């Protein structure tokens, strides 16, 4: 317990130290607000503009979560398909890798063309950004199931679905959650890209407008919000991961609960 507190203390101090250093450097080198604003100024902006920023924050969060939810569903479905069928693996994997290599900025205009500017392209961009890691991890988890484990199940005349539900999927959970932590941050990137290019709402849009007005503190305020949302969601999924896949780390709390 003591060691854990010390670790937390150190990490908090380090984060605060980072911002203090930033502030100090800005003072010492007389850095202009147009280039890099001071953290104190960003915080003031955040507080002053809070009423205006709040709906945009909600919009970005909402868009990201919807895209992420779709991404999880489609990602799991594709991952299960690719991970359990040789044919699907051969066919879909090259396609998927090719698709993942396309810069997503390039796809946004196409979505806008199809669905018009606004929330829909942002949701879709967030979705396609987060699918790939989920698919790869789920498929890997399934494909690496120990043959002996499968033998035990097959000797019991378990169907493919039985094996999937009782062995494949539970075994894949640690891989899946690892991918969720990556994916949720990617989903934010997707949303913001789309909002920047084609939307009149969301943090991406706010930052876009702020930078064209040279309102750099507001741009940084937007960045802060995004970073905060990213960290918060990462923490949420880490927590859920710990609860569900504690067995993978042989946690004693998991054993008790």
């Amino acid at each position, binding site marked *: 317990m003591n060691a854990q507190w010390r670790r937390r203390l150190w990490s908090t101090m380090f984060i605060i130290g980072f911002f203090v250093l930033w502030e100090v450097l800005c003072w010492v080198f007389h850095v202009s607000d147009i280039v890099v604003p001071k953290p104190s100024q960003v915080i003031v902006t955040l507080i002053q503009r809070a009423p205006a920023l709040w709906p945009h924050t909600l919009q970005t969060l909402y868009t990201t979560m919807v895209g992420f939810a779709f991404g999880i569903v489609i990602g799991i479905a594709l991952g299960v398909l690719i991970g359990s069928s040789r044919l699907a693996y051969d066919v879909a994997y090259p396609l998927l890798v090719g698709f993942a290599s396309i810069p997503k900025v390039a796809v946004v205009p196409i979505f806008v063309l199809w669905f018009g500017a606004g929330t829909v392209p942002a949701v879709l961009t967030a979705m396609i950004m987060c699918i790939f890691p989920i698919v790869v991890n789920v498929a890997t988890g399934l494909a690496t199931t120990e043959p002996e484990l499968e033998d035990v199940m097959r000797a019991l*005349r378990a169907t493919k679905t039985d094996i999937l539900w009782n062995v494949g999927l539970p075994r894949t959970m640690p891989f899946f959650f690892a991918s969720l932590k990556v994916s949720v941050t990617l989903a934010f990137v997707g949303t913001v890209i789309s909002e920047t290019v084609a939307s009149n709402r969301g943090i991406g849009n706010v930052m876009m407008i702020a930078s064209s007005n040279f309102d750099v503190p507001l741009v940084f305020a937007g960045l802060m919000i995004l970073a905060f949302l990213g960290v918060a969601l990462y923490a949420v999924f880490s927590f859920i991961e710990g609860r569900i896949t504690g067995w993978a780390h042989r946690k004693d709390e998991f054993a008790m609960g």
Partner: protein
Amino acid sequence: MTTEIIEPPPRTEDTFVELEKVSVKFGKGESQFIALDETDLRIEKGDFVALVGPSGCGKSTILKLVAGLLKSTNGYVYVAGREVGAAEVRVGMAFQNPTMLPWLTVRDNVMMPLKIVPPFRQEYRSKKNNEFRDRADALLKEVGLSGFGDKHPWQLSGGMLQRASLCRALIHEPQLLMLDEPFGALDQFTREELWAIMQELWMKLKPTVVLVTHDLKEAGYLATRICVMATRPGRIVDDAAVPFPRPRNIEMSYLPEFVSMTQRLRQLIVSARPVKETVQ
């Protein structure tokens, strides 16, 4: 020295497992490898057969054939009078590696077959918290694991896991029990203790057992019949009944008859080993 391929005992009403001129070949063309060559084997219902032989002679292959995990290249495998897989035969299996699912408690691991195998499968939801649970706990108690049902596999030692793995192989009262060196990784004392438990469970439940082992004392202690296999190609070269009365105990293994039996088996296995060829 060449050993004759021996005739299996004749087919009777009680024949439960039957291998008829079964061959298993791996690979194709030049690199084809005959893991099992035209093997005949008959096992009666309720029999306890031990398969011994040099490493790589196809013991695990026979086990997989009978369990329906592997298809023969030629020949037929019958279980309960029908081709393997066709009949509703409950099969239990345990390997050298306990293969417990780490996300489940030991009890849930043991109960897994009940979740899969009919007729238990249909009742699993309603009985998992009472009847099935008690059944798992009773079995765990018999192997000396009472009170460990709520633990997770990593909290148990290797020997304890192997006991749990035996429970999992037995919980659904299999007619056919396939054991592939289940005691192989254990220390001598745990092993001997588990032999006694295994014998007791077998005498009580009377499943048909095929046990693969490298330990001749183990084969002599547990089996009613010992089949010796030879390698390259894999085949059965000796098949003899074990005459000692039940229940057997570890003292019996020091009797001169027992020792001479294991010595004979040892001789057979040594001579059944492949002649060292130089591989180019």
